[in-house]
């Protein structure tokens, strides 16, 4: 399912006599059906705000979001969201967490079982069905959160720095798994991150946002062969990284420090 952003802006009223804050300004791009797009930007660039607007959790001050042909004004049943914070329910087992959405949609336990088992298998948590979240590592809990959205067969998955709290190695491994899941399900993924490496590892296209106000600075096509590790094609990898660094403003910052 295609996702279209039409000059989306978001202005927050200034608190306590302060001036209004423009978080997002004139954001416009399209995520094709089945595409993996990463939105990259420094903290405070409004990327999470953008994700919340696309998710229908918050409304834009101007512009609109189209999901297929339909205008987004509230959460859609075709869209699933994975958040950065641990969102697994501590009072439910892994299997019951994963089956939560289906249960809420009125699917009976016997009918959910197959879909739940498949989603758990996809995220590599088979054998942990009866565990509680506090018995799992942070990475495993995020897998549970991903499986909980997969089970609903989303056309679009929105991910808000889902691996932000994980260490680098776990982050890479779970990223490769996400690619496998993306391959198996064919869903559209909109992935917010502040990690250049993660964006390069995962996305077909990388949208770089500038900070305050958040604007689309540049959009990079990423054609590196997978798995995208530096050693595969060091030159192309370095070129893309340099371009991203430049766009995000890290090059100037480094020059300033040097001078």
């Amino acid at each position, binding site marked *: 399912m295609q996702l279209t952003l039409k000059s989306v802006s978001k202005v927050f009223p200034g608190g306590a006599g302060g001036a209004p804050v423009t978080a997002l300004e004139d954001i416009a791009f399209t995520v094709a059906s089945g595409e993996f797009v990463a939105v990259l930007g420094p903290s405070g660039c409004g990327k999470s705000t953008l994700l919340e607007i696309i998710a229908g959790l918050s409304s834009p001050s101007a512009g609109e979001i189209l999901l297929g042909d339909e205008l987004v004004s509230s*959460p859609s049943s075709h*869209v699933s969201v994975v958040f950065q*914070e641990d*969102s697994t329910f501590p009072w439910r087992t892994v299997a019951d967490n994963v089956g939560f959405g289906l249960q*809420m949609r009125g699917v009976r336990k016997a009918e959910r079982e197959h879909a739940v088992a498949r989603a758990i298998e996809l995220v590599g948590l088979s054998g942990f069905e009866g565990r509680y979240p506090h018995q799992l590592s942070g990475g495993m809990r995020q897998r549970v959160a991903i499986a909980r959205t997969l089970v609903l067969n989303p056309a679009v998955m929105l991910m808000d720095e889902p691996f932000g709290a994980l260490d680098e190695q776990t982050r890479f491994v779970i990223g490769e798994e996400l690619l496998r899941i993306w391959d198996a399900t064919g869903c559209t993924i909109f992935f917010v991150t502040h990690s250049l490496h993660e964006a390069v590892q995962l996305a077909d296209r990388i949208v770089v946002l500038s900070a305050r106000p958040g604007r689309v600075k540049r959009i990079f096509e990423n054609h590196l062969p997978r798995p995208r590790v530096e050693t595969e094609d060091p030159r192309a990898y370095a070129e893309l990284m340099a371009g991203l660094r430049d766009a995000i403003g890290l090059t100037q910052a480094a020059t300033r420090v040097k001078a």
Partner: protein
Amino acid sequence: MQNASRPVAVAAIRGLFVVLLLALWSVGSAVYGDTVLPPPLSIAATVIHGWREGWLMHATAVTISEVVPAFLIAAIVGTGFGLLLGLRDVWGDVLEPMILGVYSIPKITLYPVFLVLFKLGMASKVAFGFFHGVFPVEIMTQRATSTVSPVYLKVARTMRLTPWQTTVHVLLPAILPALTVGLRLAFSLTFIGVTLAEMSASRAGLGFLLNAADSTFDSQRTLAVIVILAAIGIGTNALFYAVERRVSPARAEVRQATLKM
């Protein structure tokens, strides 16, 4: 490795305290005399006797029949308001200090008002018990609700849950550990409220019996009623503790983990 023997040791020490208390009581009755402070065994006999004769059982039944509805109403009203105020930041802020303020009033001073409104019978006891018990449930529920992880509510919204589903399947389970603590306190306070009301103005119940026995210096009956009151209080408290432990498996797990260290 001390884990296995620890609960046994705790239970043994608790038992020892009970024995010690009974011993002190016996010593006390030897010092002050049987008429002032009858010994434990004679009180046990009075309790059994009173139960068989019916007056003690009847008073207990009256008190319980007042405490149970008072507690249930307090639980439902307290949880409901706690959820509403916990979710609505502004109203929570407006009302919380007022609720805490009312809670801090010595409530027995308001009992005459309850008597005027609800007359001398059961209704005034239930209302007064409710008034005692509703606050801890409301306060605990409101606090817990306003600190529920916002991401849970976002999950609920993105999964398009109805308000009822969000309440039953997300909010209530999330606040359950705090809620059970609130309910335990509520039961104690409801029980206190009902007993106080019975002692102040009534025609039946354990509080009434206690007052009547005390004013005729019948220390046998007085202590027999106190034994029953204590049994109800301690028994229900133990019951609530058991429920609390059940609803927070995570906490029990953490406790075990720290013990192992």
